[in-house]
Structure formats: structure tokens, C-alpha cells
């Protein structure tokens, strides 16, 4: 059963995303919300090693939380999909269960 993982902490502050990526399975989606959106940026200290290993997992980011932090969509790592709150709801219903990495 596929799983939606939500990550709400910056990768510069917590190991949540790292733990999430170690546990996520093929077919899962990782949704970055709140301070978690900082992980979606290109060219940071974590953007290389964190993402390269998980090409079999889809990544999404909550657009409202990007905007709230003044982060432009042009700064996102290629392939990350921006969703709104309605898209967040769709991701929850499309996956069998939701795991929050708090």
C-alpha cells in the first residue's frame, strides 16, 4: 500500500527528511510542508545527497508555504511538483495511508 509522507521540518534543523527517505518505499510520495519546503531548493548543502538516492519516490511541495517564505518556484529542484491545499488533500486520498514525520 502506497504511503504519503509529510515532512514539516527544515533539513538544516532536523533529521526528519533523512529518516523519511530511509523508510520510504517505491510508489510513495514525500510532501514537503511548513519549514520542510527548504529541502526543495536547488544548490543547498542537502539538495545533492538527499535526493539523488530516491529517484523512485515522488516529491511534492506545498506552494503556500513556499510563498510564505518568499521562495520562488524557479529555485526548486527539477521534478518537484508544487501543490496547493486541495492538492494536499488529493495526495492523502490517492495514497493508502499518511505518515507525518514530526
Amino acid at each position, binding site marked *: 500500500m502506497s504511503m504519503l509522507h509529510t515532512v*514539516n521540518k527544515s533539513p538544516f534543523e532536523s533529521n526528519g527528511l533523512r529518516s523519511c527517505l530511509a523508510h520510504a518505499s517505491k510508489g510513495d510520495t514525500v510532501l514537503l510542508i*511548513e519549514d520542510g519546503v527548504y529541502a526543495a531548493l536547488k544548490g543547498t548543502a542537502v539538495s545533492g545527497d538527499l535526493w539523488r538516492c530516491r529517484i523512485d519516490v515522488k516529491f511534492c511541495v506545498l506552494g503556500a508555504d513556499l510563498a510564505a517564505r518568499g521562495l520562488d518556484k524557479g529555485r526548486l529542484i527539477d521534478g518537484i511538483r508544487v501543490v496547493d491545499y486541495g492538492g494536499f*488533500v488529493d495526495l492523502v*486520498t490517492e495514497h493508502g495511508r*499518511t505518515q*507525518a514525520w514530526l
Partner: protein
Amino acid sequence: MKLSILINEGPYTHQAADTAYQFTKAALDKGHEVFRVFFYNDGVYNGSRLTVPPQDDRNIQKNWSELAAKHKLDLVVCIAAAQRRGILDEGEVKRHGKGEGAANVAPGFRISGLGQLIEMGIQSDRLVIFGD
């Protein structure tokens, strides 16, 4: 689809209470059923009617109360977490002798036990957790 929401963080702390509200609203707008919203640990502070945020700020408690009234939502505050933090309804005020008018659970919220959390996990298609 039938969804339930668990909130473990108080209002105006980080962002979980806001995200949970926006998510719940979006789910209702899309026509999903929200079976219950459960407030646990510091999340119980979302259900205090005594919060008075500045006028130009969002009023998280009022937002929940209004959403509950509009959609007949079941907002449940964990009793053990609430008593520790001073969130009481009329019954609990009487039981603990806290004096008339001390009840502060906000409109649309009710105080109940962890059984409600277990039940919503069983009854709902999805359980979504917001916290810190």
C-alpha cells in the same frame, strides 16, 4: 472519503495548527467528510475560548469554531491533556470546584477521552496528523 485529523500542537506555536485548519477546510471544500478533529497534548489550547489574538492576526480558535458550526464538525479535546493545561467545560469546573464561569472550552469543541481518537482511526479512511 472519510478523513480524520489529529492536532498535537498549540496555536501560534509553529505552524501545525494553521496547516491543519487549511487542510481541513480544503478537504471539506472538495466534498470529503471530516469524521472528527482530535486535539491532543498542547493541541488542546486551540480550544480555549479565552484566546484574544491581535485584531490584524488570524483567530485560530474562532476559525475552528466557525468551521465546526458551518460543517457540523466534531472537534474533540483530550480530557487528560485539557485538565493538565486548564481547559475545562462546565462539568469539569463543577467536579474540581473551580468556581462559576471558569469553563473555557470554546464553542463547537467538546472534551472527551482518547477512545475518540482510537474510534476515529478505525472509522476513517485516512488519519492525517499535524504537530511539531
